[in-house]
């Protein structure tokens, strides 16, 4: 077996390259001065500096560690105990338990997540730390059992029996003979649980409540709007910490001397040291974590719970509002409106202000989920232009429920160096010349709108024949499409990955700033004009605080700063006057002359049945 050492080394090295290539990529990105991940903008340490100041990321990181450690620890104890107990059970019964154990592992994470969510709702538990911890323990135990059980099968019972014959008590014999033999398996079970918990996204996503985030849910909410480079920096640091830990345990002279003995000892030293360090990390996290978990208490009258899309407000403004008013803001982000809706509907999470789009507001209003906002209590709303109130009337006829926040159009972003002909029509997205160069929006309404508009139909049609025609048109387009994405259109266009992309006007200013070759156009066949507004759910309790917040946001200086940060068009006319750059203030992209654009439609809520029908058509396109 000593032969072929060279080949074996080579194989190990190749596998290491395979496993570490993405990690190296992430590390490089953490030093990239450009915010876009497909462009190298020079070396910087800025992200590491801003990471320390980013309270949201740091607290998500601490929560992740605490949950991972506690759940892995509890799961290891429960799982190992279960394995020991099963050894003397009848085969049939043992099989049954193992089959149950397999369920959370074998089931789709999403089903496990949803089933637990349904359970927690039925048990009337508040979603938060507790529910996430329970869920994590549940999916961690199988990893412990699956790691420890095979070891039991290979265990030599003779040594244990010999120990008994030599006068050891069963418990003593177990701890001195069996357990050391099991230790590597138990440790790998613990390690696997810890890792699984660190990594889990889906189950956490369904069982978490307001103002609670682990690193994964934080990252996912950022995938939509582009990942903050601080996340890369944090991952790099975490990785470095793990490497340091490994080095300490294995090569530090202090541990090394101890390990000179038998092999097994090293296995015992390793989990011990790992556990100590992780515990220290977790305790420090727990101490600082207490403050924030107390703050997420909805019954506190001096607080305000906000639910917004990802990266859709300047975070400095939230701090400023807190400083000005002394109100404690709990800010939470949703990935899509479709994910937000059931959470609000089921009452699983309580909020005072939510920021959905037009058609969703209509749906929430129709389903009696909203309460009217008293506009008289919010003097700064006079800064919102009349034309936006009018647009809002298409889904809120009396301007009772919705306060305009941001608006824009849907259009084509294109790269002037890669497209020869003038871009003014949706039909260019069907041009064979741009095969694999086209990015489409991965959203039912937007994709359907593009097809319907190019056929000359309304974006709100429910006519089955027209919808069928649009579906076939999208199917025809599919071979030309490079990818169906949401906010990645932005990064990919900046990185010259594609020639044409369907995008929201709000992203156009930002992308043009990063890559001057890009330009944005609203096609002549017409498009969607959308309006995002603040609404107050029926269950909101902090009404006065919410009014204060809306008043604050509508102050011209604040609204201007917010616009500068998120680059989505503001309906605040006073704020628009404050924009120093004339090109942007009068930009056709940010503030198009709506009178010149004849065929801009807002989406309206088509009804639940119709929505599901549209979704099924869209799945048909994507599975085509």
């Amino acid at each position, binding site marked *: *077996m000593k032969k072929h050492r060279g080949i074996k080394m080579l*194989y190990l090295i190749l*596998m290491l390259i395979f496993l570490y*290539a*993405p*990690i190296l*990529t*992430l590390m490089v*990105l953490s030093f990239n001065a450009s915010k876009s*991940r*497909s462009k190298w903008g020079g070396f910087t340490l800025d992200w590491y500096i801003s990471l320390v100041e980013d309270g949201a990321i740091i607290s998500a990181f601490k929560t992740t560690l605490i949950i991972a450690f506690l759940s892995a620890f509890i799961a290891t104890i429960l799982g190992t*105990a*279960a394995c*020991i*107990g099963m050894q003397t059970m009848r085969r049939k019964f043992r*099989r049954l*338990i193992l*089959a149950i154990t397999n369920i*959370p*592992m*074998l*089931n*789709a994470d*999403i*089903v496990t997540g*949803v*089933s637990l969510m*349904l*359970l927690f709702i039925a048990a009337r538990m508040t979603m938060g730390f507790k529910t996430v911890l*329970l869920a994590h323990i*549940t999916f961690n*135990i199988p990893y412990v059992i*699956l*790691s420890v059980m*095979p*070891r039991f*099968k*290979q265990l030599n019972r003779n040594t244990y029996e010999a120990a008994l014959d030599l006068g050891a008590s069963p418990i003593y014999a*177990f701890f001195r003979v069996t357990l050391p033999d099991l230790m*590597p398996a138990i440790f790998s079970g613990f390690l696997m649980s810890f890792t699984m918990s660190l*990594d889990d*996204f*889906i189950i956490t996503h369904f069982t978490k409540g307001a103002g609670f985030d682990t690193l994964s849910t934080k990252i*996912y909410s950022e*995938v939509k709007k582009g*990942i903050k480079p601080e*996340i890369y920096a944090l*991952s790099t640091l975490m*990785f470095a910490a793990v490497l340091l830990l*490994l080095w300490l*345990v*294995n090569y530090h002279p202090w541990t090394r001397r101890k390990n000179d003995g038998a092999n097994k000892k*090293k296995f015992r030293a390793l989990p011990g040291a790992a556990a100590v360090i992780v515990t220290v990390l977790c305790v420090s996290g727990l101490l600082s974590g207490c403050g924030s978990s107390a703050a997420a208490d909805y019954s506190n009258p001096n607080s305000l719970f906000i639910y917004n899309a990802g990266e859709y407000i300047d975070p400095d403004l939230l701090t400023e509002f807190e400083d000005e008013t002394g109100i404690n803001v709990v800010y939470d982000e949703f990935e899509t409106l479709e994910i937000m809706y059931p959470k609000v509907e089921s009452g699983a999470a309580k909020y005072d202000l939510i920021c959905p789009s037009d058609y969703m507001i209509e749906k929430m209003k129709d389903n009696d989920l909203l309460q009217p906002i008293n506009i008289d209590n919010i003097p700064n709303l006079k800064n919102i232009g009349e034309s936006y109130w009018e647009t809002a009337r298409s889904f809120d006829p009396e301007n009772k429920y919705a306060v305009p926040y941001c608006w824009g159009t849907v259009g084509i972003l294109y790269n002037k160096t890669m497209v020869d002909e003038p871009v003014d029509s949706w039909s260019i997205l069907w041009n064979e010349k741009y095969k694999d160069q086209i990015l489409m929006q*991965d959203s*039912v309404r937007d994709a359907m709108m593009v097809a319907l508009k190019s056929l000359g139909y309304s974006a709100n049609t429910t006519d089955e024949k027209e919808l069928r025609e649009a579906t076939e048109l999208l199917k025809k387009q599919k071979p030309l499409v490079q*990818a*169906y994405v949401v906010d990645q259109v932005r990064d990919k266009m900046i990185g010259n990955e594609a020639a044409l992309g369907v995008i929201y006007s709000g992203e156009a200013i930002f992308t043009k700033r990063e890559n001057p070759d890009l330009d944005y156009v609203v096609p002549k066949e017409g498009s969607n004009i959308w309006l995002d507004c603040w609404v107050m759910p029926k269950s909101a309790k902090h009404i006065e605080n919410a009014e204060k917040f809306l008043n604050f946001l509508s102050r011209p200086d604040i609204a201007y700063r917010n616009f500068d940060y998120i680059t989505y068009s503001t309906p605040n006319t006073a704020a628009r006057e404050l924009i120093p750059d004339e090109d942007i203030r009068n930009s056709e992209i940010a503030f198009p002359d709506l009178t010149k654009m004849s065929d801009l439609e807002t989406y309206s809520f088509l009804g639940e049945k119709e929505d*599901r029908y549209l979704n099924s058509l869209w*799945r048909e396109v994507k*599975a085509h």
Partner: protein
Amino acid sequence: MNKKSRLLTGPYLIWSIGFIIIPLFIVLFEAFTGDNGLFTLKYVTDITWFVNLKSLGLSLVFSFISTALCLLLAYPLAMILAEFGKGRSSITVLVFILPMWMNSLLRTIAWQNILERNGVINGMLTALHLPALYIINKPPAIVLGMVYDFLPFMVLPIYNAVSRIDRDVINAARDLGANGVQTLFRVIWPMSLPGVISGITMVFVPSLTTFVISDILGGGKILLIGNIIEQMFTQDSDWHAGSGLSVVLMIFIVISMIIEEKYDSDQTTVTKRERRTN
């Protein structure tokens, strides 16, 4: 270990009833009832729709391929690790599961960067005047992502099993005239089977049910059954339909469980026989 030790299973048993069995019944309930609360088979039979059937087929194909690839890559790796790592086994193995400490969403996103049109690989290929490689948003990229994400789950259990094999058994086989290949297939492989089975379970199932990998590396152009179920819950908020398809998926999972269970019990008899001959 006396009979009292059975009680140790108690806490876990209660836990699994509360957090596994009951939630599962809630899902079953959702799958077999309609909006009106009456029994229906409609949601379970939705699987026969062309779109659903196609994505289930794709999921099965992709997860078979990625499980096979994982096994092919992991088995030699586990053996080499077990052989090389005698003095320092724990650290060598840890080096191979370390990548899992980077968040998996991030690692998958990193693959996007590597495979993209202007990505790392194509940058290198162009520098070497080789033709560019376009696998992003195509099936190979998804399989690659699955293999990458789930490989450690295959390596660990196999390594655990292989490193437990008594060197004397292998030496005995060689002394009795078996060559390297014979030793591998007649001695090492059968003895490592419990680890292999556990590894296959740990890779096959997440590959079959993933939706994140196909989302990020498939460019939304390839729908797996996981994507469909995810969309049923998040976009349609149609818990009945989502639960119905989940129940269908669980049938496939149960089938694979039964197959694995069969292998598993065969293996137990082998080891029993061995023990007796010892």
